[in-house]
């Protein structure tokens, strides 16, 4: 599905990503990316989705080297993403923007996505007028359309309450299983990550610290030292 080889992104002397190797082979699973601020989590998402160009290394998606592909091409290949800061179309209604994106990515699943993310009551509202939590779900909905194979969610729960976060993760988890999608989620809410993710990768200072199942990661001394602390 996704194979990342020796991925580096340098800004002068700053190594935002420093030789990352990662492979996600199984679909229908949620892969969490955690780490302290500045670890390179969002940068990794940006490189996979085409928002930033890697200094070196390769990103393979379903056997295709997508390193030189534009974001639009990657989306059409099946790599989809949401953003750390809500990224929607404020002046379009919810249904207008979902239809617009579905028309491009070939989705006939608008109603399913609306229903799964409980957006029906705001479907005819302009996106700029709906509640923040609904806007976050619209952002995720835009990424889910067209049955992508790899779903990148960059802090989907940012700014949401505990209840909203849990509900959003439940929706995402259900959709990932049902559609057999691979999801990669960057999230600061450790409880949500350990509760919903099947595998977790920990980054620190642009380097990959470890990848494993939640229990394994939680007990790892390097992860505790770098990110979780002894109280985790």
């Amino acid at each position, binding site marked *: 599905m996704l194979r990342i080889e020796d991925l580096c992104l340098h800004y002068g002397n700053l190594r935002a990503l420093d030789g990352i190797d990662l492979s996600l082979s199984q679909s229908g699973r949620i892969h969490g990316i955690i780490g302290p601020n500045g670890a390179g989590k969002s940068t990794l998402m940006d490189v996979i*989705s085409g*928002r930033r160009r890697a200094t070196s290394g390769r990103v393979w998606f379903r056997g295709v080297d997508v390193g030189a592909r*534009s*974001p*639009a091409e990657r*989306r*059409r290949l099946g790599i*989809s*993403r949401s*953003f750390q800061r809500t*990224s*929607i*179309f*404020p*002046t*379009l209604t919810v249904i*207008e*923007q979902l239809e*617009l*994106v579905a*028309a*491009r*990515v070939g989705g006939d699943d608008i109603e399913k996505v609306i229903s799964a993310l409980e957006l029906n009551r705001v479907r005819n509202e302009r996106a700029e007028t709906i509640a923040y939590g609904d806007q976050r779900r619209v952002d995720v909905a*835009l990424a889910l359309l*067209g049955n992508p194979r790899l779903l990148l969610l960059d802090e989907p729960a940012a700014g949401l309450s505990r209840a909203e976060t849990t509900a959003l993760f439940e929706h995402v988890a259900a959709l990932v299983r049902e559609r057999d999608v691979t999801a990669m989620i960057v999230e600061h809410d450790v409880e949500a990550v350990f509760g919903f993710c099947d595998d977790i990768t920990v980054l620190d200072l642009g380097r990959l610290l470890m990848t494993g199942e939640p229990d394994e990661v939680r007990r790892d001394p390097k992860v505790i030292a770098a990110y979780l602390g002894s109280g985790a």
Partner: protein
Amino acid sequence: MSAPVDVSAALVAKSMAVSRWSAPAALVILAALGFAVPLWLRSSFYLGLANQGLILGVLALAAGFLMHQCRMVIFGVAAFYGAPAYLFAIASLNWSWSPNAAALFAILGTMLASLAMGFAIVRAKPLAFAMLTLAIGQMLRQLVLITGLRPITGGEDGLNIVFNGAFLGLSQSALATPARFWPVAWTVVCAVVLMVFVATRSRFGRILRATRDNEERMRFSGYDTFAPRLAAFALASFIATLGGLLQVLNSSFASPELLDFSLAGNVLVSALIGGGASVVGPIVGGVAFTLGLDQFAASGHLELFTGVAIVIVIAALPDGVEGIVARLARRRGGGDAQN
């Protein structure tokens, strides 16, 4: 039990259907009535001013469309206004082409140049885009003033055109007569209003607004954002080109003044007065601004009164005349506000 609900739903549906068709119906009625203007506006002077107002309105519609749909401000609108006038003049005077052929040449030539220009500049950020259009417009103005090109462009004196035949059955003198020119200008106004009306309400319009709202999200949704912006620029250029063609058909004259950057100020103010977000507003703005300029010029303090009037109008009517109409319509439970 269900009967009252059904009746209510039917009434709502009927009301929505009426609302959906009210704006197009109003436009059709307005278009038909517009042809009758020379019947009641007998003054050649004011009809001539109104013709100039329509031409300015056409340019304002082009600029307003780009501004509202793409957040692209076009400071160099004079390029699309002056270029077709010069191309028409050159084809008429140097090659003795008929007015119809010269008009076609003027449109095609300007559009070809605008596509090449758009290809180079629509990727630019809004301020850079605005300044690039201004720079191109001024380059064109300097081009026609080059001494070596004077035999072709007429230099400072411009070109007085003698038509080789009629334009769509209208002689040169008929086109110079306000009452005879009005139907030509009004037909073009109706056509460009219809074009923009359809464009803004189509999927193309939605793509433009979505790109304006969030270009990055569009790219990450699989869309190429360059082609729609180029198409919008081409449409606006085409509309402005028609404005330039109207001008040269009416005045039979192409001069460097047509390429002056100050035109952009008048065009953008007209769009703001009328409401750049609407299809009719810029036309109203163009006519109102032209009539206002005439009154202020008569006072001897053109710039002063124009400046004061612009400040007052824009402060009092942030959404232009169209904003007032939309508010009144909403109060009466009428039509959809345009995006």
